[in-house]
């Protein structure tokens, strides 16, 4: 889906353009209409003035009192013209010179307006009216050039458009700014979600607009529920492990005693060992966090050295050299306990079998790639291929490469990753390759 910001911006921009165009159109039409009305009413007055100057002599001829007629009607092509028609006479204003107007005959008392082309390309508004004065039928047409006022209207329309366009521009800019600032909490939440995934945060900040707050509260609530569940299930499995192993330890101590027949001893040993390994594996599987935001995240710079120190202590009797080749600035959003368990088991296996050297290589592109090699005796190639094709199942034991690898395989499966075993070309021993997808889809 399109982002909120661009949706709002396009919507607002379109509505503003429509609004401003409509406004411009309305104002322009109105101005044209008003100016035409104004000119028409001026013509109306001139018609009345002209009518009052008209008189008839004894021969019923039309006489005009020129002194009362406005001067503009005397200047040629001034843009103001009149034509008077009576039943026997036709009088044009001097300004019309040798041009004439098309006169529309009208009924007495009725006005007719028309637009005509006048002299010198002038566009004229012609108002014709008919009167009856002293028994004579008079028809008067007065015309005025619309040119000057039209020029002004054009100018006005142009400037109005310029103003409207600048206003539109300013408004759009303002809107973008307003949108940005009001969507800022969303952007912040977005970046917080990212940090959450990276494990830099453990909850979203609630300092946000009220529309967003219920969502954030819900996310925080879910986070705390997930965290609590994970902790509870981890505590429970840890307690259960503790509870089962205590009696198992006692049984094992007793089977070590010499007063039990060897046959019984062997059976007891095998059974306790099986119970221990199965419960351990199942409980460890139950502890896995997987791709969820629950616990602390693994840090290659902090937790890995701790793990290696721990292994160095456990295998203090061996002098092993571990070569770490870890990609710089590696940040890997995977649960600390899961990775410690995974690396712990594989490295433990390597420490157990290695005679002097171990290589640990970690790279991350889209997946996390971990490679552990040792210079121990390695494993039978046949067994390696069968491990790779059949996978590691609960009821299988990998001869020589303890039961820890089975737990590792469980973790890798839980993360929908891949684990493969092979012969190490570089060190000559066992090689384990693990590929983990680390980003949530």
């Amino acid at each position, binding site marked *: 889906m399109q982002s909120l910001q661009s949706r709002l911006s396009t919507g607002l921009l379109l509505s503003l353009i429509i609004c401003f165009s409509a406004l411009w159109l309305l104002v322009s039409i109105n101005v044209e209409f008003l100016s035409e009305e104004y000119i028409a009413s001026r013509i109306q007055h001139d018609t009345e003035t002209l009518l009052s100057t008209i008189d008839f002599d004894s021969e019923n001829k039309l006489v005009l009192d020129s002194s009362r007629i406005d001067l503009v009607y005397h200047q040629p092509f001034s843009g103001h013209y009149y034509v008077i028609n009576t039943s026997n006479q036709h009088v044009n204003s001097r300004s019309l010179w040798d041009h004439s107007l098309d006169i529309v005959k009208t009924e007495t008392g009725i006005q007719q307006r028309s637009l005509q082309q006048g002299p010198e390309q002038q566009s004229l508004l012609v108002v014709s009216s008919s009167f009856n004065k002293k028994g004579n039928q008079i028809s008067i047409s007065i015309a005025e050039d619309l040119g000057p006022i039209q020029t002004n209207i054009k100018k006005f329309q142009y400037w109005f458009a310029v103003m409207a366009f600048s206003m539109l521009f300013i408004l759009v800019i303002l809107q973008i700014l307003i949108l940005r600032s009001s969507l800022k909490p969303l952007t912040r939440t977005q970046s917080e979600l990212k940090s959450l995934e990276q494990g830099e945060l453990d909850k979203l900040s609630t300092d946000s607009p009220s529309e967003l707050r219920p969502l954030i509260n819900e996310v925080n609530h879910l986070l705390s529920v997930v965290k609590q569940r994970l902790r509870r299930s981890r505590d429970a499995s840890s307690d259960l492990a503790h509870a089962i192993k*205590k009696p198992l330890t*006692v049984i094992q101590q007793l089977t070590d005693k010499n007063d039990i027949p060897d046959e019984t001893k062997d059976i007891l040993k095998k059974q306790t060992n099986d119970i221990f390994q199965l419960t351990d594996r199942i409980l*460890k599987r139950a502890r896995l966090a997987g791709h969820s935001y629950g616990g602390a995240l693994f840090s290659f710079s902090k937790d890995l050295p701790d793990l290696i120190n721990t292994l160095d202590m456990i295998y203090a009797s061996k002098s092993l050299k571990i070569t770490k080749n870890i990609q710089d600035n590696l940040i890997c959003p995977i649960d600390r*306990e899961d990775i*410690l368990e995974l690396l712990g088991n594989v490295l433990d296996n390597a420490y157990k079998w290695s005679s002097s050297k171990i290589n640990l290589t970690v790279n991350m592109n889209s997946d996390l790639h971990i490679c552990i090699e040792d210079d121990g005796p390695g494993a039978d190639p046949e067994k390696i291929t069968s491990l790779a094709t059949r996978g590691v199942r609960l009821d299988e034991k990998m001869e020589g490469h303890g039961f820890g690898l089975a737990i590792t395989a469980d973790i890798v499966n839980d993360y929908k990753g891949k684990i493969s075993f092979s012969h190490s070309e570089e060190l000559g021993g066992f090689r384990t390759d693990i590929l983990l997808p680390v980003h949530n889809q």
Partner: protein
Amino acid sequence: MRLLLAEDDHILVESLKKDLELAGYAVDVANNGVDAEYLGNEMVYDIAVLDLGLPQRNGIDILKNWRANSNQLPVIVLTARNAWHERVDGFKAGADDYLGKPFHVEELKARITALVHRSSQQPGGKLNSNGLILDEEQQTVTTDDGQSHKLTGIEFRLLRYFLLNAGHVLSKSRLTEHVYDFDSEKDSNVIEVYVRRLRQLLGKERIETRRGQGYVFREKA
């Protein structure tokens, strides 16, 4: 060697105590966290076997408190909680070794021996000093002439302590502390008797008496 066993399961304690005593350790037991921490600070122990799931105070806190007190007592952590993150946390708290439950006593004994040697800066393998070899499993000593002698419990404990602390002046009371557990009848004069027996076995010059101070085990005859 005086060993502190901090474990709350009394059946396990009973069987472990017996096994460890047979292996030549003077064992004191603490069955709760508070006692364990207190005893560990008494400074008479050579090693502690610490269960992490003790009542009243958990093992990790005990370890942290000891280390915060600069108590460097070598500690083997014994726990059913054997996830790797728990092991890492245990080592970070100051554990020296780690053994997950369930375990075989033989493995525990081997780890205790290894840790005791390590903390006295002894190389791996059997304890030896200038032709003298102490077999800690069989509790026998092989002298320069290649003869192997069976040692009694106290003789073995005493000789092992001398070997691990060769060249140091060891007072009678210190020897008593490290050879007998808390509940034993302690009589420092008995030490003289055992020292005399060891001298008969190894030769007089091996154990030197420093009047008013104690004994020194000489590495070179």
